[in-house]
């Protein structure tokens, strides 16, 4: 079992004809993902290494049964691409693209919520999602993910997502699904959405959550964990040494005033019964301790 995607997931790549889309689309296919289609209005009828290209997601879904879309379109086109995917009838839209304007994100998040309430959005600016051994959608290096469970991973930052996978793999611990929710101001899928899904997934027995400074998503996760979760959670928060008021790389990671500090997030998580590691390796060790007792 896994959450959001599994071996039956069929994916259409918006931007498969571009260099990044092609590179990762084919890597994902090599991993075993059912990469069934690509879209490009100017190249409909052609193919990328045998994968058919359609004018839009609706046509790709009708012809191939794709149920998930993965977007590798440059930032200016992402707003239209998300809408195309939602109209096209997929149930999950994954936006890998970084640098999407915050107002576009706020607009399409609320547009999907209103007119396409059954469509889940993941990202933008995220590494994607991998259910190891079943399917890998996005830019996560597949070889660092150990299949089989019992741990679910959710993380805000891309490379820290890989770090989490690597820490568990080194200890021989498998992963049901690893979700990178992205570091932008308006992530389509939140920590809470993922925790909820992991709590409901019978194969997932424990969850690792990697957060970072900025916003209140980790505090909201702590509240959810305290009230709704029975499965153990281990966490790590990046940005202890980050100065206030300076954006650390992407728009989400900024401490404004006294809000969004790593310390406040760690305190909230500890109060919710979460085991908090001070670095990724320590978080991995804590999880190993939990898995050993399962």
């Amino acid at each position: 079992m896994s959450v959001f995607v599994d071996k039956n997931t069929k994916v259409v790549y918006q931007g498969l004809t571009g260099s990044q889309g092609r590179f990762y689309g084919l890597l994902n296919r090599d991993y075993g993902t059912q990469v069934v289609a690509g879209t490009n209005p100017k190249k409909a009828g052609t193919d990328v290494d045998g994968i058919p290209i359609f004018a839009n997601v609706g046509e790709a879904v009708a012809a191939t049964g794709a149920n998930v879309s993965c977007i590798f379109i440059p930032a200016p086109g992402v707003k239209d691409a998300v809408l195309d995917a939602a109209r096209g009838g997929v149930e999950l839209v994954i936006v890998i693209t970084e640098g999407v304007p915050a107002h576009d994100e706020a607009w399409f998040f609320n547009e999907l919520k209103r007119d396409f309430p059954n469509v889940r959005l993941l990202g933008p600016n995220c590494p994607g999602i991998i259910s190891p051994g079943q399917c890998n959608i996005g830019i996560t290096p597949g070889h660092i993910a150990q299949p089989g469970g019992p741990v679910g991973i959710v993380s805000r930052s891309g490379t820290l997502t890989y770090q989490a996978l690597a820490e568990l793999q080194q200890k021989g611990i498998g992963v049901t699904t690893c979700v990178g929710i992205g570091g932008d101001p308006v992530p389509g899928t939140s920590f809470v959405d993922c925790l909820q899904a992991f709590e409901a997934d019978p194969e997932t027995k424990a969850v690792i959550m990697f957060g970072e400074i900025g916003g209140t998503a980790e505090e909201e996760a702590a509240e959810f964990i305290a009230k709704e979760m029975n499965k153990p959670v281990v966490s790590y928060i990046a940005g202890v040494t980050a100065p206030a008021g300076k954006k650390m790389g992407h728009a989400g990671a900024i401490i404004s005033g006294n809000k969004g500090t790593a310390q406040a997030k760690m305190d909230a998580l500890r109060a919710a019964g979460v085991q908090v590691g001070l670095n990724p390796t320590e978080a991995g060790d804590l999880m190993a301790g939990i898995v050993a007792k399962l």
Partner: protein
Amino acid sequence: MDLLEYQGKQLFARYGIPVSAGEAVTTVDDAVAAADRIGYPVVVKAQVHVGGRGKAGGVKLAENADEVRTHAGNILGLDIKGHIVEVVWIERSSDIAQEYYASFTLDRSAKQYFGMLSAEGGVEIEAVAETNPDAIAKIHVDPVEGFSEERARAWVAAAKLDPAATDGAVDILRKLYEAYTDGDADLVEINPLILTTQGKVHALDAKVSLDDNAVFRHPDYEQYDESQPRDARERDAHAKGLQYVGLDGTVGIIANGAGLAMSTCDVVNQVGGSPANFLDIGGGASAEVMAGALEVINNDDKVRSIFINIFGGITKGEEVANGIAQALARVQIDAPIVIRLDGTNADEGRKILEPLLSGRLQMATTMLEAARTAVTLAGGVVK
């Protein structure tokens, strides 16, 4: 990108928000000439990216040319919390009857726009929020629905502004929303928004922060780039297109991804060292970018060792390795380097680097081990 007050006012004016007539100048003579054109009395205002300039002596009323000369002379070059004043804004003085507060920003938790309006302006809104939270009327706006005149009117009523200010405030708030959304701002704030003794509503200050990611549809925003507060290291990094934040320590840090870069700083700190910087080379970083990153770090005199921490997703291992090799060939790197390379094509990358390894260029297999090595190389004591 944070705008100076006068830049914010110019942006507001483009959206039809009434602001005082004024001019931005950089010399005392130009200040006097500007004041003569504008008409007395004028206010001489320091243009800096930091609050509290009034208390620091950065805002002065001038009745005549002599006073402008004195105040502009005192304010230009003034150090306000570490920011040196290079520009002053000369504007027509206003007769203030009431001071209000208005702003729009994003509520990341609600995933909607968030507006605050208060009849208690002119002071920091955080202070009002603490002492008298009921004095702030708050609204959420759905970006898809937009912000109607009816909502603006109800909001002004809820904030209990002077009835004489209602129509003017409604008009300004709708234009402020337009500036916020159409202008791709992260924050628009007017504090104070004033009602004058003549019964006009008008923006007396402007605080605007723009979304860097939206510059592609506002090419004119590039003009604001050079007035961003950056130290020499940050300017150099910015010119090379790198995400860099200067810190005070001795271990130079290069990582891919903001999260990993922050985590790298944290781990160096935990094992007893101190990071000299945060540097995210981003996704898809090429050899060129890596070389530029090494040059920036190399120019930082405080750096005693360099820790390159790459976990490849988009960034491929061989590109990282080639970048390091090219940078080493191009510039004399003074500090010893420790590299931790993992992820996509990490093996290929390690193979490229192997022939180059020495006491000055080491490889470590884990992040913690690499951090300890970097701290030792920097002359620190590992915890």
